[in-house]
């Protein structure tokens, strides 16, 4: 279980995050939505150990997260593949702690899972954007992390590639059941993927509402109930602009 306990983050005098409390169950998929500047990426980076909270703590199975650790994988908005390494070597990059002779078969298996088995020897610059992002997902998953963090992982991709990668991510999740915490500004993406959607608002960054999405998967993007949630979340975010404050009905 992943627990975010009263996490605050200040940059200079600006409060980026104010007392975030969030508990994520093992194997749960939580999507965080919010306008830019609400600190959602900062929160993810704190959970990943790339940044330290100004106060509060992140606890994974009873152990406080003090820095990057192999139990937590992170997929960035960009693939961030090392351009001088082949696709397979990029995946092996995440296996430095494993014995040398295990790395190659593990990397190849991870690439096969994301459908890139035939491109193990290719260089990153030879891949399309969607393929490169799949390679990045393979790298994040190859060490079998318990928690997978994704920071707007599909936002740089076209809509079709995005849909197919969303489906793909769910397939991987069904097979390996990692806890997934992802950030997006695509509300629909959050609704299609998540068990729970967390809505964040800015100034200072805080959790405004949470919705449990108890629809069976696979979900249709056009499903009426998803659209209703989408409207509600849009209202949540629009309220932030208008400054009025009504309690959402579905808030947990």
């Amino acid at each position, binding site marked *: 279980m992943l627990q975010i306990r009263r996490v605050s983050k200040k940059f200079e005098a600006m409060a980026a995050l104010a007392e975030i409390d969030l508990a994520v169950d093992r194997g749960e998929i939580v999507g965080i939505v919010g306008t830019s500047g609400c600190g959602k990426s900062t929160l993810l980076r704190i959970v*990943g*150990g*790339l940044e330290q909270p100004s106060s509060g703590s992140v606890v994974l199975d009873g152990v406080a997260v003090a820095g*990057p*650790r*192999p139990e937590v*994988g*992170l997929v*960035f908005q*960009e693939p*961030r593949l*090392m*351009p*001088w*390494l082949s696709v397979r070597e990029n995946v092996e*990059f*995440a296996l*430095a*702690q494993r014995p040398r002779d295990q790395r190659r078969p593990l990397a190849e298996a991870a690439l096969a899972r994301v*459908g890139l088995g*035939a*491109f193990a020897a*290719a*260089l990153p*610059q*030879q*891949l*399309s954007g969607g*393929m490169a992002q799949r390679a990045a997902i393979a790298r994040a998953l190859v*060490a079998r992390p318990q928690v997978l963090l994704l920071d707007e992982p599909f936002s740089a991709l076209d809509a079709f590639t995005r849909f197919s990668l969303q489906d793909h991510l769910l397939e991987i999740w069904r097979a390996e059941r990692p806890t997934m915490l992802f950030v997006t500004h695509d509300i629909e993406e959050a609704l299609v993927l998540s068990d729970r959607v967390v809505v964040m608002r800015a100034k200072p960054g805080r959790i405004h509402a949470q919705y449990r999405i108890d629809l069976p998967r696979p979900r249709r993007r056009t499903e009426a109930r998803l659209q209703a949630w989408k409207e509600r979340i849009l209202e949540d975010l629009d309220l932030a602009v208008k400054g009025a404050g009504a309690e959402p009905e579905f808030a947990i």
Partner: protein
Amino acid sequence: MRHSLARIGRGAVSGGALGLVLPALLLALWEALSRFGVAPPNLLPAPSSVLRALRDLWLGGELWGHIEITLLRVLLGFLLGTAVATVLGALTGSSALWRRLLDPTLQALRSIPSIAWVPIFILWLGIFEASKVTLIAVGAFFPVYLQTMAGIQQVDRKLVEVARMHGYGGVALVRRVLLPATLPAYITGLRGGLGLAWMFVVAAELMGASEGLGFLLLDGQQTGRPANILAAILLFAIFGKATDLALALLGRRFTAWQDNFQHAEENKGHAADQARLQEV
């Protein structure tokens, strides 16, 4: 695909050959002007007499000695300058503290025309090899230093973050990320440094040497043998180009992943095609 490969092939061949047309024409013109006495042979000897001078020098047995000592000076000076530049560039590139401490001084030194060091180097180090090698080292230093610093500074912070995320730090971070990411800039620096090393070896040898290709230049002038001067120039061109090519090829081995843009774009299209086929 086959079509585009053929196009590239043809482009490479005609591109290489095309570059040789002008020099060949100029050589022919030069030879003709000399043969027909338009150009005075005591000022501009024909290409054929330059080649003859080269052959005579070779048969005289002294040529290889001159080449050897010049190559040795270039090599030593280049290695010395490169070694110091690599260390200082790595320091200033990776640490703002070192950069603030060292870089202003080095940039100030850079603005001194390096030839201006010659008298003081001769005073300090004597007229023999030490002052020459030092001058060449100073020449080779700056391109390598600047490129090393810039190369390290420009390493993508996002890639470093990926490495941190996977537990890399210290030596492993340097070896797996910083070094390969810096290598292209470093090789550019090395090639620039080598070019300047060749420039400075001429300066050093013109200043006073009893052997070396630069000495041949001076000797040719003082004994009124322009063919020897041109022969020495030709040798500088050949060895300068050859050593640069060697360095470039060595660099390519390590930075093959960079390749050229066009090649990458074509492969990208190709790979994407394959991906589509797979998905269907």
